[in-house]
């Protein structure tokens, strides 16, 4: 079971919790477990094709999973997974 830290912007979808738990052996499994517990957070993390949205960054400890194999990055018992938004936007 990994601890998952939820950014302020998404706490409305985790009943206000800043920390939730997710079971899984990879980052993808842990995040999917969180979306199963809190279905409303799903559309903010994944797009219609089931891909992680470009503004969602996932850290295991201090390391971005982009450097650890993406959603297949291994998660060990007691790891802390942090969801960090990359803020983006702009005019057309």
């Amino acid at each position, binding site marked *: 079971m990994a601890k998952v830290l939820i950014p302020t912007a998404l706490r409305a979808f985790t009943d206000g919790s800043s920390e939730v738990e997710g079971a899984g052996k990879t980052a993808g499994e842990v995040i999917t477990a969180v979306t199963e517990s809190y279905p409303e957070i799903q559309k903010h993390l994944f797009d219609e094709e089931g891909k992680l949205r470009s*503004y969602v960054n996932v850290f295991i400890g201090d390391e971005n999973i982009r450097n650890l194999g993406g959603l297949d990055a291994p998660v060990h018992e007691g790891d802390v997974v942090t969801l960090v*938004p990359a803020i983006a936007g702009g*005019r*057309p």
Partner: protein
Amino acid sequence: MISITKQVQDRINAEGERDYPNETCGFLLGRIERNDVRESDDIIPVVNARETEEAYHRFVILPQDFLKAEHEALAKNKNIIGIYHSHPDHPPIPSDYDLEHGLPFYSYLILSVKDGKADKLTSWRLENDRSGFAAEELKV
């Protein structure tokens, strides 16, 4: 409703004019009172991390800058309650790109910068179902 101090407005205007013709961006710090009334009295400007040739119509704040700002906000006993960015030579209305990348909860302040001069400042909130942005009343 979000209320910002005159100083916050002046600083956002100055950032927007300084970075013109590129987009400026940063965080709004403040408090959220009961009834979701928001008050901002400080900003943290952030470097627009988009490549130079795209920065005239795009901005991105890197996750490490987000984490740094969140720590800075906590140290000041405040919260990140919103994000500001500019639309150079374009109305201060969220674009489809803003919608695609927007997050709920935050107040999105958009500053129109016309010919290098700060113009209108507006505030928006993403609907929780991501269907669109709703205008948020902005007071200075």
